[in-house]
């Protein structure tokens, strides 16, 4: 068996948002480190921000918001289940990160004196900072990677993190998706920056890659963390987003909101009570869709011409620029018609919700030498800026860790087993195609896991997933590209099973629609005011346990919490 063997001090897996930052910051901390950034696509255009981003929605800038306000708001928005220290680590570094990105050439909206034009959206703080020309993000990041002399390998699919006898990171393994060549990279430490798990469910259009998330983000990092023995937390807190129907791109209420746009029901009336993009808001959205008041629309046609033109410019040039084309083809003009919206397939994404590979305020997972940042890591509501801040934290702490850490050997049998797993589909000329297996897994996710969650349905899903796990042994891939899809099908199934098991474990309802359990409709703080953690047991199975919520660093005033809740849930009782 031919395996290309390499050695680096630090390997960063995923070159989207957090990854380039982690690699650059590790190199800045210690220029002597050999740092490798790996992407299964091309870093030039990979990840959730491949086409840029139209704004920051969690900017904590002095004079507009304080870190304490931010921590409070996310604590309440996340029903109290947060590691406040990790939130605070983000909040106190947010402004400095914006300044650094500004110096790097990322264009934020400013007023005529050069102050950031921060906009008010949520009631406690002021967090939106538009980036009307945010389509240059990747170019800016690439320039910094070159400047810091980070090594880059594109089109390399990493599939496993191998550990040594002491349980710490020893190597990563994968293959080239153009040649199918196996690669084993010995390393002192690794940072997972693989983004959301956005290909667990099937989008309503039925088009396999028509997902909300960049479909490359299919949960490989979540799966790798699991197999390496790391904790993943609160996976039952799904990501579900309000999207433009069929197109499946974000409706970007945070772009249109400050300019006067809003989410409306079929009668053109506002109905959303909650402030924040949260499970509560999604529950209100879901209820409206199900009620006679649906469908739900994004309404901007009441706005002035110049405002609509501004919205169009931002929405049609950044993040998902094909949106304009989608509307044009259907004859939808923001000036005259409301834009139909729908809810997304489920996923894991800490950027918008709270699930992921469990990390602390230093970016460390529970496996020594393994770090995680961005949408795949567990810090809630982190968005793009949080990915940058945690990328930086991971890069710096991993660089420090590498200095005092020798290479450790990995178990040869583990590498052997992984090589066989990867090569399996290539050796079969007959069998199941990756596309079929993926489609079936994701279709079952929609049938059984999409909230509202019902215990019996989840049990059926687990049975069916078990059958598909056997089918994985029949995957056949005629070439390297199909092999990539086959290995992704493995990761997708792992994520689907984790989603189901974590959801069954938490026997209460919490986070609005994200964990809305029909058999346990009430929130149960007495038994469930805790994180859940999932990890691999000695027998390879998924083990779940409760973890206490870390002590708060910012007290959330009871009356404040109550006031907030009254505002958030005012009408839910009538509609559920």
């Amino acid at each position, binding site marked *: 068996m031919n395996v290309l063997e390499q050695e680096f001090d630090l390997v960063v897996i995923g070159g989207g948002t957090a990854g380039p930052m982690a690699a650059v910051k590790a190199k800045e901390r210690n220029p002597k480190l050999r740092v490798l950034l790996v992407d299964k*696509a*091309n870093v*030039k*255009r*990979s*990840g959730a921000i*491949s*086409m840029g981003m139209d704004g920051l929605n969690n900017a904590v800038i002095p004079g507009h918001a304080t870190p304490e306000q931010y921590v409070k708001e996310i604590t309440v928005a996340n029903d109290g289940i947060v590691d406040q220290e990790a939130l605070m680590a983000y909040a106190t570094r947010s402004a400095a990160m914006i300044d650094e990105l500004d110096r790097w050439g990322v264009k934020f909206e400013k007023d005529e004196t050069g102050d950031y034009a921060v906009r008010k959206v949520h009631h406690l703080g002021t967090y939106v900072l538009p980036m009307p020309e945010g389509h240059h993000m990747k170019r800016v990041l690439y320039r910094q990677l070159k400047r810091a002399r980070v090594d880059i390998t*594109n*089109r390399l699919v990493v599939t496993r993190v191998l550990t040594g006898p002491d349980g710490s990171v020893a190597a990563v393994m994968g293959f080239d*998706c*153009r040649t199918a060549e196996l690669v084993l990279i010995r390393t002192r430490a690794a940072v997972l920056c693989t983004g959301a798990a956005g290909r667990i469910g099937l989008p309503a*259009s*039925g*088009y*396999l*890659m*028509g*997902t909300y998330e*960049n*479909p*490359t983000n299919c949960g490989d990092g979540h799966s790798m963390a699991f197999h390496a023995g790391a904790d993943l937390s609160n996976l039952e807190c799904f990501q579900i987003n309000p999207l433009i129907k*069929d*197109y*499946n791109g974000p409706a970007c209420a945070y772009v249109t909101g400050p300019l006067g746009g809003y989410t409306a029901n079929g009668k053109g009336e506002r109905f959303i009570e909650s402030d924040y993009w949260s499970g509560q808001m999604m529950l209100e959205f879901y209820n409206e869709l199900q009620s006679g008041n649906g469908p739900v629309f994004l309404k901007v046609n009441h706005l002035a011409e110049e405002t609509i033109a501004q919205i169009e410019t931002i929405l049609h040039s950044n993040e*998902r*620029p*094909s949106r304009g*084309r*989608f509307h044009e*083809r*259907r004859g939808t003009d923001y000036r005259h018609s409301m834009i139909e919206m729908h809810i997304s397939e489920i996923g894991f994404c800490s950027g918008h919700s709270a699930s992921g590979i469990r990390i602390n305020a230093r970016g460390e997972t529970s496996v020594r030498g393994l770090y995680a940042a961005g949408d795949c890591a567990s810090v809630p509501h982190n968005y793009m800026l949080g990915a940058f801040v945690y990328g930086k934290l991971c890069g710096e702490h991993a660089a420090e860790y590498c200095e005092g850490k020798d290479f450790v050997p990995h178990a040869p049998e583990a590498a052997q087993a992984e090589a066989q797993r990867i090569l399996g589909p290539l050796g079969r*000329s*007959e*069998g199941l*195609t990756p596309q079929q297996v993926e489609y079936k897994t994701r279709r079952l996710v929609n049938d059984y896991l999409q909230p509202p969650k019902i215990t019996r349905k989840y049990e059926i899903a687990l049975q069916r997933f078990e059958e598909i796990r056997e089918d994985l042994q029949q995957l*056949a891939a005629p070439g390297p*590209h199909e092999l*990539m*899809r086959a290995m992704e099908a493995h990761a997708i199934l792992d994520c689907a099973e984790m989603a189901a098991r974590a959801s069954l474990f938490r026997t209460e309802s919490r986070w609005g629609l994200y964990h809305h359990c029909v058999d346990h409709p009430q929130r149960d703080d007495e038994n469930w005011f805790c994180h859940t953690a999932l990890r691999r047991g000695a027998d390879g199975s998924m083990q779940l346990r409760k973890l206490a919520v870390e002590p708060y660093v910012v007290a959330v005033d009871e009356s404040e919490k109550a006031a907030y809740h009254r505002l958030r849930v005012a009408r839910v009782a009538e509609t559920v």
Partner: protein
Amino acid sequence: MTIALSPTQVPVRVNEEKCIADKGCTVCVDVCPLDVLAIDLVKGSAFMKYDECWYCLPCEQDCPTQAIEVDIPYLLR
């Protein structure tokens, strides 16, 4: 043999007149996050080999000769 090929209309259209893949250009193939584009060595132009498109547009925007047009996949239109 039990594996069939199912034809499908793909969203990426390449203008073969404008495409300069024959001169060694691989920009669109390089930037595609899903790696679904390839070069037809006989025709000397790029084409969409796998119907796995996120309609994200780097191929179209980064093409040096504006040879690519990305449509919204039929199932979404």
